[in-house]
């Protein structure tokens, strides 16, 4: 009872589970099985497990970096301390725009799916404006509400995972046999592609100070990522059993196509329900990423978060105006993914080493 005010605005460590998981699960889960199958065929399920383990390691690195110094428990402060105001500021800026473009890419892809499957004539503006408004409304009310969006983004659509059991009726176990008929180079490429589906959790670097007892949240972060890996593994497995390999490689969104097989007494084309509910899945992607953008900008420039949020939303809309075609959308998604790859694979380990060195220096001097 000593800090009731603080408790109101901080989130329980368990909720990091939802923040990590919902940031990872998004548009990727609709199409990742095609991409990994292109790289390593139907043996790419191995890559899901390997990539999952690697990301567990990266989560551990992130927590080590954040726990290194209690006074510097978020990325802008860490950058400032390690690299100085200007270089550190530049690095933070890169990360902020990485999150910004991540949100934009997710939004553009989702609008693209709606245009492709439901409303061929709907314009981008018509959907982007209400969606960005809802995102802004959530961020405006602070991180507690953003966490709530992540919570509902997990709880409401989680049952959709079980709809993947329906295609198993027509599954063919021979598809994935023989096991382990693969080469290392294939798997490495598939692991690379797979990691892209797992990016986004590094937002912890920004919201860590909002967690009550941050250290206790580490196991929940690992747990959240674990659930992401299991969900991806499950979806990939059902897709591999259901589709033949050449067919899978031709489908743009295999998960959506798989929903076509579901028949209910009152619903004929289940993928419509799926696409509508997928909005609730991508909502945390958008809110957390744009929250990171607005929060980081506030910390760097000293502007009010209300204003940085408005800037973020307007910029997001403007960049959607530029990305018009499907190829451009794919290009943006891939670029964000490549940057994410570099951040996770190179930058975070480097930062970890620096933080260890600095800590040792601090202890010896």
């Amino acid at each position, binding site marked *: *009872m000593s800090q*009731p005010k603080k408790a*109101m605005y901080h*989130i*329980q460590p*368990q*909720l990091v589970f939802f923040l990590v998981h919902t940031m990872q699960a998004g548009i990727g889960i609709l199409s990742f099985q095609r991409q990994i199958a292109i790289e390593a065929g139907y043996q790419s399920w191995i890559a899901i497990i390997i990539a999952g383990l690697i990301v567990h390691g990266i989560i551990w690195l992130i927590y080590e970096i954040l726990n290194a110094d209690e006074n510097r428990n978020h990325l802008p402060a860490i950058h400032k301390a390690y690299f100085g105001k200007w270089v550190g500021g530049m690095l933070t800026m890169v990360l902020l725009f990485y999150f910004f473009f991540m949100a934009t890419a997710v939004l553009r892809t989702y609008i693209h799916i*709606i245009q492709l499957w*439901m*409303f061929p004539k*709907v314009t981008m503006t*018509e*959907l982007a404006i*209400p*969606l960005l408004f*809802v995102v802004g*409304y*959530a961020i405006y*009310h602070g991180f*507690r*509400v953003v*966490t*709530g*969006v992540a*919570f*509902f983004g997990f*709880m409401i659509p989680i049952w959709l995972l079980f709809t993947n059991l329906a295609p198993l009726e027509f599954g063919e176990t021979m598809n994935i046999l023989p096991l382990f008929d693969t080469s290392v180079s294939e798997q490495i490429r598939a692991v690379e592609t797979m990691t892209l589906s797992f990016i986004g959790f590094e937002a912890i670097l920004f919201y860590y100070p909002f967690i009550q007892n941050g250290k206790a949240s580490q196991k929940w972060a690992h747990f959240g990522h674990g659930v992401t890996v299991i969900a991806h593994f499950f979806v990939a497995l059902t897709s591999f059993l259901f589709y033949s390999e050449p067919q899978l490689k031709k489908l743009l969104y295999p998960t959506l196509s798989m929903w076509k097989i579901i*028949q209910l*007494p*009152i*619903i*004929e*084309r289940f993928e*419509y*329900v799926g*696409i*509508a*509910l997928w*909005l*609730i899945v991508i*909502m945390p992607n958008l809110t957390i990423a744009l929250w990171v953008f607005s929060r980081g900008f506030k910390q760097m420039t000293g502007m009010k978060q209300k204003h940085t949020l408005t800037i973020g939303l307007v910029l997001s809309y403007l960049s959607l105006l530029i990305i018009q075609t499907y190829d451009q959308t794919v290009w943006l998604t891939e670029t964000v993914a490549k940057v994410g790859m570099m951040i996770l694979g190179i930058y975070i380990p480097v930062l970890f080493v620096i933080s260890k060195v600095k800590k040792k220096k601090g202890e010896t001097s």
Partner: protein
Amino acid sequence: MTKSNKVSDDLRRPKESLSEVFRACEKSQDFVRHTLTTQYEQTFTYTFFETMVDGQLFKEQILPVLQKGSFSTLRDVKSLIPIEDTEISADPIEIEKRLISGYIFIQFEKADPYGLLLRAPSVERRAVTVPEVEYSVLGPKESFVENLDVNLHLLRRRLKIAELTVENITVGSLTNTRVSVLYLSHIANSENVNTVLQRIRDIDYDEIIDSSYINQMIEDNKHSPFPQLLDTERPDRVASELSRGKVAVLVDGSPTAITTPTRFIEFFSAFEDYYLSWHIASIYRLIRLFAVLFSIFATSLYVAVLTYHTELIPMDLLSTLVISREDIPFPPIIEALFLELTIDLLREAGARLPSKVGQTIGIVGGIVIGTAAVEASLTSNILLIVVALSALASFATPIYRIGNTIRLIRFPFLIFAQIWGIIGITILSMFMIIHLLTLKSIGRPYLEPIFPPRSNDLRDAFFRLPFSLQFKRSTYVQPEHGKRFSIRELLNKNEDIDEHID
């Protein structure tokens, strides 16, 4: 109160002398100011409002004493009159206040600057009746009445401990309404109590007619359609809420009490849930929640599906829908809006009319208009079923206020369904969820125990688990004492099968 710089305080200048008070009162014709000379040649001047004073009490208990006795001081009068609440006062503000609320003022001489105040108010009170809004088959059949003292009595009789604290605040510059804030001092969180007290003290308004005025003035988000404080007419419900560490607000002249902090889920729990066995109560709660979801989404889904996603429905069902709509000249949205508005019109007309006429309205509206509209090919009979069911479902909410909210938010859903189909419904649902996430009731999260998730509070939310499992008070109230009873006995019950026979 005196130091607050509210605008309304400046409107009425406090009267400086007693004669000024009387001059203001004399304009009213129910004001009585007589001088009486007794057999001992002593004079008395008595002053009161005849509409506020119990005339019988005055004639039988006060007048005879005055006529018979011979007094030298007011203190003598005070000791002889068989009324407990008496006071000698010279303060004009005090005397004015007392006169208005049913005191008799007695002086020796008309010009005396002081006198004796005797409490003799006539109290018109309605008998305690059966609750009408929150009726229950089982359980007590008492509901609050307009008289605050009776309501406090009903509550004190249910919570027989000294810790039941009543704090009075007067609000409303014209109505001077007495507002009582109740809480159990050893259980209620003092932060909650202080927030409620502070918000009521901060009210600056001239008329406070009912507790719903207070309700709307102390809500956290005054622009939200969702009620954030629960209002009830059942004293048993208020007593139970108090025992969980909540704060209750009763207003003089209002037969509804407010309790707070409140969670969203509580608006769907009827108090009868506690009188039924826990399985049945839990099922009823789930039915109510399902009814609410149905009520919000049914019509808008109909519009969305028939406007944009006809391929979503299987062939057999689709043919039924198409046949029912084949003669209808309107798009689904016009049809749906027409029917929804008709139903709301019927509800509004039924609510404003006396109950016997109201029944006729139900028959005329429900049967005649409904059938005629279908036969005239203005609406499809399937939509009629859907709209009627969703209207019925919205009436299944036990708290009147939330039922209104649900009927209101159906309309934006209809419009969004027309614009963006089922995507529009999801966008608006997401907006609603975020809106609910932002709400707080006296600073406590509104969506608890869903978010923030707290497993302890789930015991009495979607389900009502048996009393033996309700051993902790809900955490969102932040009670000073969390434990309701000891659970040791429960744990000792793990004996083996047929243990008593060797």
